[in-house]
């Protein structure tokens, strides 16, 4: 079977999907640690004339983090 993923996505996305599937196959304790490592949060901020705009998440997080410190 030829790999049809190349028609639809980049190698990066292919790798992310395969890694996500692998993490879901782990036992519960290892899975929790792996999912924590794997979470990628991206925030962006538009700048105009030297003034910063509002910080927005690319994908809003599901839960509010209690401490309010921004992710590194």
């Amino acid at each position, binding site marked *: *079977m030829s*790999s*049809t*993923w190349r*028609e*639809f*996505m980049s*190698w990066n996305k*292919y*790798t*992310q*999907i*395969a*890694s996500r*599937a*692998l*993490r*879901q*196959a*782990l*036992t*519960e304790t*290892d*899975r929790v640690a*792996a999912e924590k*490592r*794997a979470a990628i949060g991206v925030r962006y901020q538009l700048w105009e004339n030297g003034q910063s705009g509002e910080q927005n998440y690319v994908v809003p997080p599901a839960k509010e983090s209690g401490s309010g410190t921004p992710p590194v």
Partner: protein
Amino acid sequence: MFASRFAPALRALPRQASAVRMARRGYAEAADGKLQLSLVLPHQSLYSSAGVIQVNIPAATGDMGILANHVPSVEALRAGVVEVIEENGQAGKKWFVSSGFATVHANNTLTINAVEAYPLDTFSAENIRSGLADANRVLSSSAPESEKAEARIEVEVYEGLQAALAK
């Protein structure tokens, strides 16, 4: 006369031979002739320039075994088992790798970059089975081709896992 002409040539010969021998030894070639392996994940370094005998990798073009002084190559990996044989006669250590790249450099080093790699005993057969069932359900449904392509990747991962655990 013949002997005198011959003697200087004979004296020069051993020096020449040792110079050739020195030139053939590579820079990073360890005295023990082992392959230098670096198997790294984003969060952890499993091997960091460690001398090993053989590494088996699941390349997208087929399974390969890499020994010392392999020809330089770059291989994309598919989901499969990377096996590292550290000493002759020892059983290989296995990790199931999700995806990545394996690069053999000209100085007898092998670098494997993988996103996720775990030993085979950290997987749950139940989770694999349910993941495979979910992916197959998407494949047999009327989802768009892009989603089916994603499901096919997951099927490849889970079936590879089942095959690796069954051995």
